[in-house]
């Protein structure tokens, strides 16, 4: 899966330019200080798994997307974007506690889904406002999609992967299969 092609589509899917994806404005810095904790990784794993769950194929947790999200945000985001993401963790937990009296990672699958669906709607409304800053959930969703579809599990077991195809066929019938990774 070509990263550049992928971030173009992710931008459409999330309705916002891919953050930390523009090769010429940003790049990734090796960070030595830990901006995120193991707890944060576990939290992101649950968010990502809610967006892309395990079905008959692997999900975000199988692909260790939480770990990737933390690496990418630490090294490829600027400080403002990192803060947005960190505030997002707090916000989601606050909402979870208000609604269900528990931290997000302790919610049932159905509760996680309902909560993030509401937040996604909030992000969509925020995007509609002119000059609104990027919503933390948009960042989470972008990182989830990038992390998942460039992972071994996502690129080879959800999408289709042929490292050495042999012959290229230009025009074949399409019957609902997943895309080529």
């Amino acid at each position: 899966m070509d990263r550049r092609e992928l971030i173009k589509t992710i931008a459409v899917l999330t309705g916002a330019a891919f953050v930390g994806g523009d090769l010429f404005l940003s790049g990734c810095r090796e960070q030595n200080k830990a901006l995120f904790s193991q707890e944060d990784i576990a939290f992101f794993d649950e968010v990502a798994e809610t967006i892309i769950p395990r079905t008959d194929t692997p999900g975000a947790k199988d692909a260790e997307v939480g770990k990737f999200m933390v690496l990418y945000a630490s090294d490829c985001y600027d400080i403002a974007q990192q803060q947005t993401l960190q505030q997002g963790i707090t916000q989601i937990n606050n909402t979870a506690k208000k609604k269900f009296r528990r931290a997000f990672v302790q919610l049932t699958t159905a509760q996680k889904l309902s909560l993030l669906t509401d937040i996604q709607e909030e992000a969509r409304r925020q995007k509609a406002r002119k000059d609104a800053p990027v919503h933390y959930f948009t960042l989470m969703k972008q990182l989830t999609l990038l992390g998942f579809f460039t992972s071994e599990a996502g690129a080879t077991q959800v999408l289709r992967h042929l490292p050495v195809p042999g012959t290229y066929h230009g025009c074949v019938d399409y019957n609902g299969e997943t895309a080529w990774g």
Partner: protein
Amino acid sequence: MAENKDAVTHFDAIVVGSGISGGWAAKELCEKGLKTLVLERGRNVEHIRDYPTASTPVWDFKYRGALPKSVLDANPYISRAAGYDASTAHFFVKDADHPYIQEKPFEWIRGYQVGGKSLIWGRACARWSAMDFTAPHRYGYGIEWPVGYDDIAPWYSHVEKFIGVCGNKDGIDTMPDGEFQPAFELNCVEQHLKEVVAEKFNRHYVSGRWAQVTQPQEIHKEQHRQCLSRNLCMRGCPLGGYFSSNASTLPWAEKTGNLTIRPFSVVHSVIYDEQSGKAAGVKVIDAQTKEEIIYHAKIIFLNASALNTNLILLNSVSERFPNGLGNDNGLLGKYICFHNYRASVSGEFDGFEDKYYKVSKPSECIIPNFRNVYQQDTDFVGGYVIFSAGYREKLNDENVPAVLGAAFKEAISKPGKWGAYMYMQGETIPKASNHVRLSKDKKDEWGIPLLITSVDYDDNDDRMVKDFIEQGTAMMAAAGAKNIVVNDNRQPPGLDIHEMGGVRMGKDPATSLLNEWNQLHHCKNVFVTDGACMTSTGNQSPSILYMSLTARAANYAVEQLKKGAL
């Protein structure tokens, strides 16, 4: 290729550069029995062994292919090169290591290693037509080429058979057929564009002729080369699927026992011998030790890449040639030209949702030039070709339910919208004002003057861009494209990676530096057969012409040498 470290300093031939044209010079000269020294300023790169990312999957790159910020910050120019990313960056120079001076914006893309840019080239291999060779002279925007299509055609064949070029025999007068292996199929949208472009515009939209071995012939089996559509070409191909010096010409030359390659050899200048009126050899600075070494040879091929070949000649001063070797007319370094890649058109297509393709192909389609072919029929001179491809987006973003979870996962994992793009590759006019020269006071770490680039677009280029955008948009619209997006990126010259000229061929020593055999008019045992030799840019990708001119000149050089004429 092992570096030969013994102290032999006399050879039959010296080739400066090991890229697309240098590799060809080495192959031809070695095959003809000449003890040949290839000087490469960069490191050694051995086929397969030195392709560290050749089979690295995306998940094994730290940021999944994004580059570290430190790399981007340190390389503002080279990092904008086509194909530069975490999987290929090791085949491009680092900006800081190889400074030059941009009098006008010019982003000079270089790959300093054995194999040069042949590892990272675009691989398009169409022939020039007879009209392309005559156009500048016919329409009065350039000088006459000293060779024509018929002179080069047998050498095109010679090169095509050896490197492996895929394509169809399309019978198009503006893009002659060659010795082809099976072409890559068009996908459904490309097929549709082909039909519309033929019916409504009377133009050709065909599978590109690309340097891929799709059906290995005997000679490719000997080279262990076959393309299996991995489509990761620019990382170096473990299958030798595309042509590079590393996979093809250099190992072939080495088999003869006549090849010596010396990496880390920065050529300072060609040494002129006043008594014989010929070049005696070259002066090399070892890139690592800075040691100065003189190598001698009977013939010298300069294939250092277009601008570096200019630099070497400008720096080759002697009593006889105070302004650079062969530069009696003062035109050395002038008439630098390039290809105009500024504009693109893209759009989306409905109606092909039930069609897909199997994996991907390493080539594009091409619409050969249809402007100013038999007569001047536009408000600009020169022509352009259009490269184009249809594609289906990797993930689906159409009609995705506004939900998260399993339904979302299923919806986005499907292939998405069909789209197609077109971009131009336009001829530019050779002009004396577009030039390179040496800095009078700034030198690099090897004591060689820095090159100053003074190269820019003109209004002919603007008019051509406008025409391409109109024609590209019209063809896309006629094919039913929606959401058509037009872009003129105004990228500086250099990013096209097709810089040419400065040491141009011609019939008249008063207006050119090289004759019809690529010899310096005034120093016959020095041959220039890389991009520097170009009299005009044409509109096709130039590499296969460099290869053909190189093979032709090398064979001529050997003949002349045997006759005692050099």
